[in-house]
């Protein structure tokens, strides 16, 4: 039934587009033809096509013009031409959200839907449901029910699909059609069955039991439709996941049985469901992996792609499970579909041996330019994982990364590369120089501010420690001259770091910085950005003092306080003018920066998240505590313990968890209590504490009432020991005291009479870690010199129970609760000596630094050197280690 349009189009354009020069107004003008009688079906259908084409090309129809055309179109229902009629349905659907009063066609559509012409009925149902709202739905409900069970599959499917759309706005009406849907679900037609199961699931999805029944019913009898199988596999795996479940459930058996289905689509869906189940063991994965392996040699590209993509996912968690497929994957490396080839290579990089790396890297670099950025990121991530696994391959991998860095690419891609290079540099000192010089080259022509500033920061940190620091200056100073403000500011800071650490270069650095500051002399290039100028001025005056301590404190190691905390404290200070200068020590410290603990594949944004949460956590505590009158005058909150300690087993009558808050001379224990007995209400709850050391309990702040399952909080305030300030470690025995009132579990009514009771809790430990806040010193040596040796003490210990250096390092870090600096928490392999560098701030705001030299013979011998700006912290650290 091919039709020829106007001869004119044919002649003028040849193969060109007859719709190319359509004018909206002209087409709408043409629509007046609709009103003519008799109707010319072919002409009218063509005009409708033109309107649809215009909408399709993004032409915007105003409400009035759309409504006008829509009303004209309704006349066309008088014609019985099938094509024209079906174009009308399409126009109705298309215009249902542009034109007004579209419901006037309801009766025409209802007539078609129940009429004799089968090819009208399906589309009529769909058009009708598109224009119907929930109030009108009741009127056509009867027809819908009939349509769902109609013996013509296209009608039944149309009704089911429309019902699914309607669920969103008329759930309550549609759910009454379950019986009909149930009947349709046993249909022999594959699409009807699929749509019916879809509808049944969406009506019942909030009722887990009903879903389970549905799965077992339909899986027992088997399904006709592969699409329905896929749907059921998804439902089953979701159900399994919510059960957090054991793998011997019938649901898992069902999914596994689908691995033997005759349709590839179902087999793949089942395999991918198994792979995606959380916590799947290698044994459970095996059958899924072997069907995926078969798919790898399929002639269909989509199937190969699906298989290798899923295998790639498996390889992230269980590389050994995929090793069996290595041969098949090797064959895909040369696949003409680059997506498949890339996935195959990155999977092989995860599962293959060290020997195959060179070959794979060569292979992949041959088509790197042809694949999309997303896949490039996948490649970079695979390389990053490799670097950790095979440190000896750094050279090959680095050169590959740099060639990628030079090519075109989006931000995400470039960031992944830079992250990866930085982590290599940090981990491997041999590759540092080459890495830095490549990065220098990269920032010469880098359009991404974030990356440029990051690299400048890294240069400032690592550059001065290299053999030939002066070669980096040119690169950095070029940034100062050529870039915009943010990068300039970063570059100025980096320059200052070179000046602070290298005396030979200091004079030239001073000259460079001076050019950025206020006019001095005849060669002035005063920077026009405030931030850059301020930074330069600041660094200049610090550097000119030529004092190591100042350099360390203000250039190399920056602020350790929490920035939001500082902002609030400063605001507070300006609100209450006082004679005293602002004390930086009163500002809460930043909880340990997360930047250094970046894991290889997490993007930076994800790693930043926890930092923010942690920072606000302490602020929340501070506000809560400040609201308690008993805790007025304790001073600023110094530290809150990161994880609450459970003082009860989790399944007991009462669940108590304790958070420790440290103040300059006091500690507050916060007990979060939950009463899990529904026939009791507790009142006046306190936790009595008995210290073993010289701590003194000052007061208890009770939780007034603790009804069933509503958490409450009580506090205990203690004073730190004054006579022997070094005795900070202490064990408290705890006992909860309260008044019990019985209550009715159903009504919640409480008896007036109560009785006293008590409940023994587990002991609570306070250790030195509660008195020290972690801080990161980027440059430990500078910080060490800054603090000076006035209060330095040194002692040697033997750790008789510890057999390896890693264990010793782990224990010391955990015990002191300080931050390991310059990656000294990593012990290189095959060494028997190691130096651990720790930094922290002691309660009251004094820096405390510990250098611990470890020697492994049969047992570990440890020499601890501690420095601080006060004597007390040093004594406490040494006393507690001993």
């Amino acid at each position, binding site marked *: 039934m091919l039709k020829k349009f106007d001869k004119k189009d044919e002649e003028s354009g040849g193969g060109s587009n007859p719709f190319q020069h359509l004018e909206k107004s002209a087409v709408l003008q043409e629509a007046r033809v609709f009103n003519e009688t008799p109707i010319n079906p072919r002409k009218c259908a063509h005009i409708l*096509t033109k309107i649809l084409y215009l909408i399709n090309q993004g032409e915007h129809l105003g409400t009035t013009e759309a409504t006008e055309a829509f009303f004209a179109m309704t006349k066309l229902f008088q014609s019985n031409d099938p094509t024209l009629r079906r174009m009308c349905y399409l126009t109705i659907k298309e215009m249902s*959200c542009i034109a007004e009063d579209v419901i006037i066609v309801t009766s025409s559509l209802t007539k078609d839907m129940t009429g004799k012409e089968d090819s009208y009925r399906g589309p009529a149902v769909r058009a009708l449901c598109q224009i119907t709202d929930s109030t009108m739905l009741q009127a056509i409900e009867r027809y819908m029910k009939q349509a769902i069970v109609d013996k013509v599959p296209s009608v039944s499917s149309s009704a089911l*699909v429309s019902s699914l759309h309607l669920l969103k706005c008329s759930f309550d009406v549609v759910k009454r059609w379950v019986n009909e849907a149930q009947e349709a679900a046993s249909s022999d037609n594959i699409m009807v069955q699929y749509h019916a199961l879809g509808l049944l699931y969406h009506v019942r999805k909030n009722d887990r039991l009903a879903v389970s029944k549905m799965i077992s019913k339909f899986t027992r009898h088997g399904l006709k439709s592969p699409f329905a199988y896929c749907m059921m596999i998804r439902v089953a795996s979701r159900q399994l996941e919510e059960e957090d479940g054991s793998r011997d459930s019938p649901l898992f058996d069902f999914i596994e049985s689908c691995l033997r289905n005759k349709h590839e689509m179902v087999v*793949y869906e089942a395999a991918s469901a198994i792979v995606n189940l959380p916590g799947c063991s290698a044994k459970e994965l095996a059958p899924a992996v072997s069907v995926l392996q078969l798919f790898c040699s399929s002639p269909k590209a989509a199937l190969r792609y699906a298989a290798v993509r899923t295998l790639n996912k498996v390889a992230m968690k269980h590389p050994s499970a995929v090793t069996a497929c290595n041969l098949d994957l090797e064959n895909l490396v040369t696949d003409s579909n680059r*997506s498949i080839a890339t996935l195959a290579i990155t999977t092989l990089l995860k599962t293959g041996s060290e020997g195959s790396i060179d070959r794979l890297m060569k292979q992949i670099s041959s088509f790197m330019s042809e694949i999309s950025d997303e896949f490039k990121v996948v490649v970079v991530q695979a390389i990053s994982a490799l670097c950790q696994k095979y440190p000896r391959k750094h050279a090959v991998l680095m050169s590959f990364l740099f060639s990628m860095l030079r090519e075109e690419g989006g931000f995400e891609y470039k960031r992944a590369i830079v992250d990866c290079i930085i982590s290599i540099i940090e981990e491997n000192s041999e590759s540092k120089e080459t890495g830095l010089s490549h990065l220098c080259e990269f920032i010469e022509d880098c359009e991404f501010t974030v990356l440029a500033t990051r690299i400048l920061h890294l240069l400032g940190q690592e550059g001065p420690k290299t053999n030939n620091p002066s070669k980096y200056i040119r690169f950095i100073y070029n940034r100062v001259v050529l870039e915009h403000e943010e990068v300039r500011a970063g570059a100025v800071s980096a320059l200052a770091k070179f000046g602070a650490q290298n005396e030979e270069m200091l004079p030239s650095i001073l000259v460079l910085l001076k050019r950025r500051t206020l006019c001095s002399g005849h060669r002035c290039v005063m920077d026009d950005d405030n931030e850059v100028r301020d930074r330069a001025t600041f660094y200049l005056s610090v550097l000119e003092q030529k004092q190591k301590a100042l350099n360390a404190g203000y250039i190399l190691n920056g602020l350790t306080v929490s920035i939001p905390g500082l902002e609030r404290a400063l605001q507070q200070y300006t609100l209450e003018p006082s004679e005293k200068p602002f004390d930086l020590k009163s500002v809460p410290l930043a909880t340990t920066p997360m930047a250094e603990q970046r894991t290889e594949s997490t993007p930076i944004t994800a790693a930043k998240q926890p930092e923010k949460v942690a920072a606000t956590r302490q602020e929340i505590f501070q506000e809560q505590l400040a609201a308690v009158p008993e805790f007025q005058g304790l001073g600023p909150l110094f530290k809150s313990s990161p994880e609450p300690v459970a003082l009860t087993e989790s399944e007991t009558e009462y669940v108590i968890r304790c958070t420790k808050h440290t103040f300059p001379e006091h500690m507050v224990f916060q007990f979060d209590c939950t009463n899990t007995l529904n026939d009791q209400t507790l009142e006046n709850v306190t936790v009595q504490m008995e210290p073993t050391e010289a701590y003194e309990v000052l007061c208890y702040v009770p939780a007034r009432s603790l009804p069933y399952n509503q958490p409450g909080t009580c506090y205990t305030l203690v004073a730190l020991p004054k006579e022997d300030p070094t005795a900070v470690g202490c064990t408290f025995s705890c006992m909860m005291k309260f008044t019990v009132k019985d209550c009715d579990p159903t009504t919640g009514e409480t008896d007036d009479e109560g009785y006293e009771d008590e409940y023994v809790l587990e002991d609570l430990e306070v250790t030195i870690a509660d008195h020290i806040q972690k801080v990161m010193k980027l440059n430990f040596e500078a910080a060490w010199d800054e603090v000076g040796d006035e209060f330095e003490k040194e002692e040697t210990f033997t750790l008789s129970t510890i057999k390896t250096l890693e264990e010793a390092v782990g224990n010391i870090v955990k015990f002191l609760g300080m931050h390991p600096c310059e990656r000294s928490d990593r012990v290189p392999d095959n060494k028997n000596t190691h130096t651990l560098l720790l930094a922290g701030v002691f309660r009251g705001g004094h820096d405390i630094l510990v250098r611990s030299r470890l020697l492994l013979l049969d047992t570990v011998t440890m020499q601890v050197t501690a420095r601080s700006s006060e004597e007390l912290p040093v004594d406490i650290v040494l006393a507690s280690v001993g």
Partner: protein
Amino acid sequence: MQRPEAWPRPHPGEGAAAAPAGGPAPPARGREPAGLRLQEPSLYTIKAVFILDNDGHRLLAKYYDDTFPSMKEQMAFEKNVFNKTSRTDSEIAFFGGMTIVYKSSIDLFLYVVGSSYENELMLMSVLTCLFESLNHVLRKNVEKRWLLENMDGAFLVLDEIVDGGFFSLPRNKLNGRY
């Protein structure tokens, strides 16, 4: 590499007005980070279908969710996809966090777009179905000129195959009068 794109979205026909009173509360929407866990089983399979000519111009396009809400974004997406796919002879690609299956026929490019979580083979069967139906309607001449001359047929075919993002398949393609 995957965008959390797992949740079905209302297709444009129903617009934002679908705020159900007593409707089905989308279960656990806020509870779980999509992407880490499995997606909600849904029949919303298809994000978009489009047919481009060999210059990458749109001849026919339907979008079924609001991944690309404006015409400008849609066009940009189509252009990108075209640039990535038109020169290679493969049938599947991963782009912008979505799986795209495609097929070329003389001077036409047919594309079906689904989320990265979607069964690739199901998208393939939508594409195959689209191609075969067009082949039937255009009497085995799946090329630009014939498509344009039978645009009404193409609109009808697409409407039958995909209804608001659901794969609904032309059942009666042999007796069908497109």
